[in-house]
């Protein structure tokens, strides 16, 4: 509404925003400094820029190998990618169909099912670990990437389903009916009309599923027993010892892990606003 901000106001606005950005980025710069500095320890300094630069920490983390000389980082990266990618795929497939049904069809148990979805989110996840472990053993899915993917995909389902359902609710039914009249089968309606229209929500849901799987480490550390199949956060955990933290390695590893998520985040950020709020704003 204020199309004509005075010059001073504009200056103050930019100054304020820059300051806030600086404050937000300071911790990140600090980590970058740790990653680039030659020491493994923290140093007492407020300066967020490194005094000396070395890539040793990155080299160590990226080049880590195991006793057999296998390239550990490469395998762990692959493992992370497979786990996160498969989680996104499986999670999204399950969430999209379920959310569509919840949004469009009437069937018994729908309301209580939706409530149950929410309710399970309120029980602390760490406490589900103990029973989960036994169930995975019964299913022969312990120490397997498949098991991890299933656990991730299902644990993020309630959130994904709720978000997608909210978005589907905003898509007019008439569009689907128009497609039916145009001669589309139920499957075609779903794939050619509903899904393309839900793209913002799909993008955001995919992003969250991917992030959740990419970042998680408690379950991964508990369920996986093979170093070469560890996901990256589990590998990172190794640099943080009980008595001693290898800050340089930790920082370098943290940056490496965060980088892909950040890239995805920025690529998809234009969907974030619409995908997150459409359900609430329009509905």
């Amino acid at each position, binding site marked *: 509404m204020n199309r004509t901000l005075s010059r001073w106001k504009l200056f103050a606005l930019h100054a304020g925003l820059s300051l806030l950005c600086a404050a937000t980025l300071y911790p990140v710069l600090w980590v970058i400094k740790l990653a680039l500095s030659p020491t493994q320890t923290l140093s007492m300094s407020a300066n967020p820029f490194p005094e000396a630069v070395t890539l040793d920490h990155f080299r160590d983390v990226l080049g880590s190998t195991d006793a057999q000389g296998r390239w550990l980082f490469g395998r762990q990266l692959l493992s992370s990618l497979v786990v996160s990618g498969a989680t996104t795929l499986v999670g999204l497939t399950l969430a999209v169909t379920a959310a569509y049904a919840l949004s469009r069809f009437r069937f018994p148990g729908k309301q209580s099912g939706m409530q149950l979805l929410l309710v399970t989110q309120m029980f602390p996840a760490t406490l589900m670990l103990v029973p989960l472990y036994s169930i995975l053993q019964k299913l022969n899915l312990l120490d397997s990437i498949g098991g991890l993917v299933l656990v991730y995909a299902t644990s993020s389902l309630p959130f994904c389903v709720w978000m997608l359902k909210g978005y589907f609710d905003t898509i007019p039914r008439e569009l689907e009916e*128009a497609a039916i009249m145009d001669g589309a089968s139920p499957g075609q309606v779903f794939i050619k009309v509903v899904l393309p229209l839900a793209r913002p929500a799909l993008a955001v849901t995919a992003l969250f599923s991917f992030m959740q799987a990419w970042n998680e480490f408690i379950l991964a550390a508990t369920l996986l027993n093979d170093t070469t199949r560890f996901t990256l956060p589990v590998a990172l955990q190794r640099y943080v010892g009980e008595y001693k933290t290898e800050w340089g390695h930790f920082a370098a590893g943290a940056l490496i892990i965060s980088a892909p998520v950040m890239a995805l985040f920025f690529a998809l950020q234009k969907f974030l606003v619409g995908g997150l709020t459409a359900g609430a704003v329009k509905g």
Partner: protein
Amino acid sequence: MRPRVSDVRLVGIKKSFGDNVIVKGVDLDVTPGEFLVMVGPSGCGKTTLLRIIAGLEQADAGDIFIGGKNMNTVPPRERDVGMVFQSYALYPHMTVKENMAFGLELRKLPRAEIDGRVAEAARMLELGPLLDRKPKALSGGQRQRVAMGRVIVRRPKLFLFDEPLSNLDTALRVQMRGELARLHRTLGVTMLYVTHDQVEAMTLATRVAVFNKGVLQQLGAPLELYHRPTNTFVATFLGSPSMNLVDARREGANFVGKGFSLPAVGDAQGEVKLGLRPQDLRVGAKGPLQGEVEAVERLGFDGYAFLKTAAGPIAARFEGADVHVGQTLWVEPQGEVLHVFTADGTKALHHPETRGAKA
């Protein structure tokens, strides 16, 4: 090209949502090639009926025949019908061209055929320059035309329209009405049209079906309905301003009501409801009904005056006269114009002779 046309027959259609009965047993015959308008107030079941014909809803009871075939369990895409939605329901992620081609692609028509049909429809609807735009970048009238184009390219035997003009402004609506009529003439297909706007019904239809509360009230040519409404609902629904209704009783050779007495027509006895079209009444210095002018709707030289009379509100035409709010004036019927209904309004007892011109 000989138009593919189809007749529609509905037998005892019933539909309810939960405890809410929407359609209470409707029988309807649509003859091939006609433009049938289904009209009624909102919630009267007309849209539901259209959706049942389209196959978007399942009737709870009754049979639907299209082109002589029972369609009760046939899915929409095999019914060979096209539908234009109230909100147009254009696919926002597709261009105009893709929107129109979608149905044809689903039917796996050859590319050349698709392009040809889209081009033809675009020419017919003057959409040529807009083909590569997304619906977001179109005006209301343009979207409307795309919605029609989408149906036209498919060349269905039966067109269904669900209040297609209700989202347009008045000028566009008049224009589009004209185009629709032209379209019907050009294509010659059967069209079923739902609206709550009686003007659209009167101007477009070959026949009008008036619905109220899930029941078909009357089916017939527009003028027949206007002149010979089967009950007070139809009588008041069609025509603008609505027909005036007053309670009266037969006393000898007169209908006597509160503050008026009119010469009786027909053989109705006892309590009745009298219907008087405002067009048939004149405001003046004399007449059987007297009232105070509450509002004036001047259309130019002539117009309508709305009076408060002892028998209730009455609308009547005036010409030239100097009519003001607050005046006390008289209303006089122009000839033999009385419609007589039973006191509960469910049945017509007498209609005036239809005259040729209705000024």
